C-alpha cells in the first residue's frame, strides 16, 4: 500500500494553492455578497492551464486523471473559495467527460480546446421541476426535424447558465411510454444556449451566490444534429459513465470546505479567550473539532481510494458513492461546528464560517442526495432489494 501522492500530484497541489493565494476570503465574501461571477479567479485558473486538466492532450488539455482533478477542486474549495469557486470551474474540469468519450470527432475539435483554454463556458442541464433525483422522469423533448432537433421544455437549477455559451442538455427523444426501459429514449446535446429561444432566470438562493442557478424555459430551440453527443436515445447511459467521477469531485469539494472550516474554528479556538483561557481549552469545544478532524481524514482516505481505482480502470461505484456520502457529511459537520465554535461571531460574514456553512449544507442534497447514495449502496453493493 502506498499513501503518498506522486511528485506530480504534490506539485499540482502546491501550484494550485499558490495560484489561489491571490483570492482570499474577502474576495469570496464580496463575490458572494454581490452575486458576481468570479471572473478574475476563473481567468487565473484558465491562464494557469488548469481547466483542461482531464481533457485529452490532442484537444488542448493535459489528459490527467480524476485523482489530479479531485486534488485541484479540493484545493480550490479549501482556499476559502468553497463552492463558489468550485462551481465556477467544476464543469470545465470534468463535465465534458461524456463528450470526450462519446462525442464525434468534429464536436470534440469544435468545443474541447475552447473549454481547456477557458474561452467556452458550459453548464449542465438535467434537473426539471418534476424530475429531481428521478432523472428518467424528465419531459424536455427534442423532436427531429431534418438535420435539426427542435427542443421544448423546462429545466431548473441549472448552475452557471446565465454565464454560459453552451449547455450539455439532457432531453427525451422518445417518451417514457414509447420505450422498453425508462432509461432509454434520452438524448444528450452540447449546444448553444440561444437566448432567443431559451429564457434564463436566476433563482435567488441561500448560498453559493457568486454562481447563479437558473430556471430555463426552452421554447422551439433548434439544435443541429452535429451538436448531438453520441447516438440518439443513449444519453442516460453516457451520463452514467460520468457519475462516479462526478461523485468523487463533489466529495473533494465538500472535503475542502470541511478543511477550511475546521482551520478557521481551530484558529478561533486558540485566539478567543473567555473566562481567562482560550475557549479551545474546553473539552466541550475541543472534542467536536477533534472528532471532525478524524471524520475528514477518514472520508479523505475513501476518496483517495476511489480516485485511484478509477484512474486504474477498476470498478469504483462503491467507493465513489461512499466517498460522496462521508465527505458531504464530514464537511457539513465541520462547518456546523465551526459556526458553533465562533458563537455569536459565527454569524458575522466577517468570519466566513457562515458562508461555508451555507455551502456545505448544499452538498447533502445536490447533485445527489445522501439518501440516494444509501439506495445505491443498499441495492447495488449489499444486494438488498431495490426499495423504490
Amino acid at each position, binding site marked *: 500500500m502506498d499513501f503518498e501522492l506522486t511528485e506530480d500530484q504534490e506539485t499540482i497541489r502546491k501550484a494550485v494553492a499558490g495560484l489561489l493565494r491571490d483570492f482570499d476570503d474577502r474576495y469570496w465574501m464580496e463575490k458572494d455578497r454581490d452575486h458576481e461571477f468570479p471572473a478574475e479567479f476563473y481567468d487565473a485558473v484558465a491562464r494557469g492551464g488548469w481547466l483542461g486538466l482531464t481533457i485529452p492532450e490532442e484537444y488542448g488539455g493535459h489528459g490527467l486523471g480524476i485523482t489530479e482533478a479531485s486534488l485541484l477542486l479540493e484545493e480550490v474549495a479549501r482556499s476559502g473559495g468553497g463552492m463558489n469557486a468550485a462551481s465556477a470551474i467544476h464543469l470545465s474540469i470534468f463535465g465534458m467527460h461524456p463528450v470526450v468519450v462519446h462525442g464525434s470527432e468534429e464536436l470534440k475539435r469544435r468545443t474541447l480546446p475552447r473549454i481547456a483554454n477557458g474561452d467556452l463556458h458550459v453548464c449542465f442541464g438535467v434537473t426539471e421541476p418534476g424530475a429531481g433525483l428521478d432523472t428518467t422522469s424528465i419531459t424536455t423533448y427534442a423532436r427531429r426535424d431534418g438535420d435539426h432537433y427542435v427542443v421544448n421544455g423546462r429545466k431548473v437549477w441549472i448552475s452557471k447558465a446565465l454565464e454560459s455559451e453552451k449547455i450539455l442538455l439532457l432531453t427525451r427523444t422518445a417518451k417514457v411510454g414509447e420505450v422498453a426501459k425508462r432509461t432509454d429514449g434520452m438524448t444528450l446535446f452540447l449546444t448553444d444556449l440561444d437566448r432567443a429561444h431559451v429564457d434564463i432566470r436566476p*433563482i435567488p*438562493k441561500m448560498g453559493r451566490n457568486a454562481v447563479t442557478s437558473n430556471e430555463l424555459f426552452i421554447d422551439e430551440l433548434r439544435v443541429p444534429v452535429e451538436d448531438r453527443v453520441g447516438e440518439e436515445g443513449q444519453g442516460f447511459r453516457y451520463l452514467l459513465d460520468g457519475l462516479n467521477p462526478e461523485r468523487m469531485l463533489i466529495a473533494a469539494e465538500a472535503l475542502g470546505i470541511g478543511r477550511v472550516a475546521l482551520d478557521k474554528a481551530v484558529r478561533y479556538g486558540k485566539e478567543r479567550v473567555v473566562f481567562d483561557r482560550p475557549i479551545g481549552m474546553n473539552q466541550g469545544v475541543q472534542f467536536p473539532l477533534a472528532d471532525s478532524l478524524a471524520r475528514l481524514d477518514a472520508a479523505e482516505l475513501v476518496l483517495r481510494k476511489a480516485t485511484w481505482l478509477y484512474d486504474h480502470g477498476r470498478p469504483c461505484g462503491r467507493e465513489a458513492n461512499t466517498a460522496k456520502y462521508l465527505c458531504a457529511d464530514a464537511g457539513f459537520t465541520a462547518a456546523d461546528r465551526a459556526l458553533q465554535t465562533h*458563537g*455569536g461571531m459565527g454569524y458575522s460574514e466577517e468570519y466566513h464560517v457562515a458562508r461555508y456553512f451555507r455551502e456545505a449544507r448544499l452538498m447533502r442534497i445536490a447533485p445527489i442526495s445522501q439518501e440516494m447514495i444509501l439506495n445505491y449502496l443498499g441495492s447495488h453493493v449489499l444486494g438488498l432489494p431495490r426499495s*423504490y
Partner: protein
Amino acid sequence: METKEFVLVRDLLRSFAARFRVGSADDVKPSAGAAAQEALGELGLGELRRSTPPAATVQECALLAEEHGGLPLPTSLLGTVLLAPELLRLLGAPAAPGGTPTIALARDLRFPDASPSPLVAWDSEGADEALCVHPDGTVTAVGLGQAAPSVDLLRAIRTAGPARRVVGRLTLAGQRHWQAYALVVVAAELMGAARSFVGQSVAYARERSQYGRPVGSFQAVQHLLADATVQVEACASATRYAAWCLDHESPERALVAARVAKAEVNRSAVEAVYAGMQVFGGIAQTWEHVAHLYLRKVRVGATVLATTADLLTALAEPEPAAVAVVEAVR
C-alpha cells in the same frame, strides 16, 4: 386563565399570525415589521404578565410563544410582550411613561455578564428602550441606537446606548425566576418554529412525487421525519415541564428545568429543521423558500441567552439544595 379565555387569546394570536406572516425573506421590510408590530400591540398581550398575580400563567405564555414561532413573523412577542413586562412586574416598577421596553443582551446575544462589553437591544421591533439585568441583579434601562445586522432575518436587533436610569434590583430568587422564565419563553418560540417547519416538510413529503410516488413513501424520508418529530416532542416536553415548574415550583427547580429545556432545544430544534430541509431537497436552498428563515431562527436561537456549553456547565454544577443536604448530613 380559564381555558375558554385562553383559547380565545390563542386564536387571536393565531389569526394575527396568519395575517402578518411573511411569505419569503424579501417581504421582511422595516415598514411591514412596524405595521405588524402595531397590530400585535393592539392585541394587548403585554398586560398578561403585568399584574401580580399575573393574568396568564407561564405555561400559557410559553404556548403563545410557541404559536408565534410557528410562522415566520417579523414581530417582537418575546422581547416587548412577554419578557420586558415580566421584568417590570418582578421589580414592581412602572413602565417608562408611554415607552415600550424590550430586553438587552450581551453582544453575542447571551445573558449580560460582568464584562463591560457593549450591549444590544434584542427583539427590538417596536421598542424604544431596553432593560438590562446585570449579574448583581440591578436592572437598568438603556436607550436604543442603530439597527444591528442580524442573521435571524425575523428578529430585529439594535445597538444599545448608555444606561439611562436604574429601574430596580432583583433579589436572588427574582434573578433565578427571571433567567428561567426567559429561557423558557425563548425555548418555546424555537420549539414552535421547529414543530411548524417539520409539519410543513411532512406536508411536502406527501405531495412531492419522485419515482412515481410521494417522496414521503420512502422509508428514508419517513424515518427522517419521524426522528424530527421525536426531537420536537422532546423539546416540547422539556419546555412545558420547565414552564410548569415556574408556575408551581421554587425558582431553583425552575431554573434547572429551564436550562435542561433550552439545552434540549438548542440541539434538537436545529436537528429537526435540518431534517425538514433535507426532505425539501433543492427547493429549500432558494431565497424565496421559508426554510432559511426557520433555519436562521433556530440556529441563532441556539446561542441566544445561553449556549449549550453554558447550560451543560451550569447543569453539571452541584445543585444548591443537594449541597445543603450533604452539608447538613456531615
